[in-house]
């Protein structure tokens, strides 16, 4: 039982990172418009986040330093601050979107207007950040998020021609109805979402919350190598079911209800219940993850005490940052900002945050002063260097593509 729970951090991080509200909708949009022709990006992103999450987890376990502490240490205050601004912008925008997403999921389940739910959700998330023990948070939302496996079951129940799905995924091409810049824009957005920096902030800080040491590296690795691929598979299942059900009907995906439609078609009411539980758990889990990550990154940059492992009054600044972020998020949502549109702008900030986060992780993982025998091997370095190049290309391309395609319209 304990071993099973040990996997929860990876599953929560992965589900939170891969199938948060932005991804749920983006995957459904991508599925209905591009089919599986962008599946390769999801695979590329899954491997990339596995490489860097493993590195950041190993560094945290051996050196006791979480990711943003190392960003400041290796990049200095100025460049570290540039990263801090980009990272906090991405993470706070996602936080806003997740709180809105939880409210939308509750609206779907209860038929009570989402705007009435928003303050309630804000309060609930804050109570979890303030008071609920770290491992309980990750176990509950990690395991409940597994309800999203219902998209995999739906795919199977829809009895598609798996051979043609595989052909489509393995021979990607731009669909005739879409332009190449739009295709590339979605490729960059999907890749950026898969590698979003708060996943490593949360994962490495979570390791310190749970007091990992070098002995925990094997468990940490299984977390990474089970959790993230599972998140990726759920993403692909959402895209595939969306393609099968929505792509042929000409429906434009604009709401969370439409994301759930393929499950209803395939499995009826029971499927819908699972989908709603999954939506709620994934968005709520991601809200906790992003809310904490805002606190983690700012505190680590300035060297403040952070973490749920000490009483809030011993980490006062950390808790004040999260309180302000939560009040701001609820405030922004009550201005009727669309939570799904909000995440689209985070692509811009990711372009700054991604390279400046992953470079210091890769460098520190190669420092024998900190890592001793747990220093990077050849495979981690080859993959790490390769991904740094891919991240740089994606970062440089992100803003021109966004302008060119008016954010993928």
């Amino acid at each position, binding site marked *: 039982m304990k071993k099973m729970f040990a996997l929860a951090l990876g599953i929560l991080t992965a589900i939170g990172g891969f199938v948060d509200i932005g991804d749920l909708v983006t995957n459904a949009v991508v599925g209905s418009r591009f089919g599986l022709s962008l599946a390769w990006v999801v695979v590329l992103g899954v491997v990339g986040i596995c490489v860097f999450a493993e590195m950041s987890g190993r560094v945290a376990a051996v*050196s*006791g*330093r979480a990711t943003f*502490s190392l960003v*400041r*240490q290796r990049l*200095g*205050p*100025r460049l*570290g601050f540039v990263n801090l601004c980009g990272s906090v912008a991405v993470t706070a925008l996602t936080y806003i979107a997740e709180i809105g997403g939880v409210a939308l999921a509750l609206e779907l389940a209860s038929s009570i207007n989402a705007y009435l739910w928003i303050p309630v959700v804000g309060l609930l998330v804050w109570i979890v950040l*303030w*008071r*609920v*023990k*770290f491992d*309980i948070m990750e176990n509950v939302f990690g395991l409940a998020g597994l309800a999203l496996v219902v998209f995999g079951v739906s795919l199977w129940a829809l009895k598609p021609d798996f051979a043609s799905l595989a052909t489509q995924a393995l021979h990607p091409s731009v669909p005739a109805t879409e332009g190449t810049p739009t295709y590339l824009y979605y490729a960059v957005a999907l890749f950026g979402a898969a590698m979003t920096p708060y996943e490593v902030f949360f994962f490495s800080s979570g390791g310190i919350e749970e007091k990992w040491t070098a002995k925990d590296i094997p468990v940490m690795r299984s977390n990474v190598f089970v959790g993230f691929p599972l998140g990726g598979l759920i993403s692909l299942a959402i895209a595939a079911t969306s393609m099968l059900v929505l792509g042929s009907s000409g429906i434009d995906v604009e709401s969370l209800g439409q994301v759930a439609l393929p499950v209803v078609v395939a499995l009826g009411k029971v499927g819908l219940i699972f989908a709603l539980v999954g939506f709620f758990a994934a968005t709520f889990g991601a809200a906790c993850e992003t809310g904490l990550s805002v606190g983690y990154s700012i*505190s*680590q*940059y*300035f*060297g*403040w*005490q*952070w973490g*749920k*492992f*000490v*009483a*809030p*009054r*011993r980490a*006062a*600044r950390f*808790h*004040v940052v999260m*309180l302000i972020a939560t009040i701001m998020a609820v405030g922004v949502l009550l201005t009727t900002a669309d939570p799904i549109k909000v995440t689209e702008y985070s692509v811009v900030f990711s372009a700054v945050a991604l390279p400046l986060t992953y470079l210091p992780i890769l460098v520190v993982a190669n420092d024998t002063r*900190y890592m001793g025998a747990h220093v990077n091997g050849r495979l981690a370095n080859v993959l790490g260097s390769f991904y740094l190049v891919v991240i740089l290309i994606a970062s440089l391309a992100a803003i021109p593509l966004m302008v060119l395609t008016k954010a993928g319209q």
Partner: protein
Amino acid sequence: MTGIPRTLEAKLQLLDHQVIDVHGEMVCMVDDLELRPDRRGHLHVTAILTGPGALGPRWGGRFGSWITAVWRRLREDADPVPGRIAWNVVTGVDSGIRLNCARADLAIEGLETWTAAHIVTRIPGAGHESDA
């Protein structure tokens, strides 16, 4: 106990590193170091400097002087000095800088004390670690 290495490179091993107290709690960042010459012309490291009063001047330029100016404004004393931790309480240098005293004993936590007193301790449950 890790101890202080015989030789150190200041920027690589001290600057922008996390300071940790005797109980393992996080104290601050090393924003700068204070160096004092002795009679024989040797420069001794006498203190870790931290907070906006240390980071502002180091940052330089318009943004740096703005940080310093805001920090001076918020301080009550006419000629404020930055947060200072004497070097003689440092006992170890590894991925962080370790001290032999508690963070509460260092007079450097203005913002932490203020937020704790005015905001955090007014919310129920501030005195306990997260639990079920």
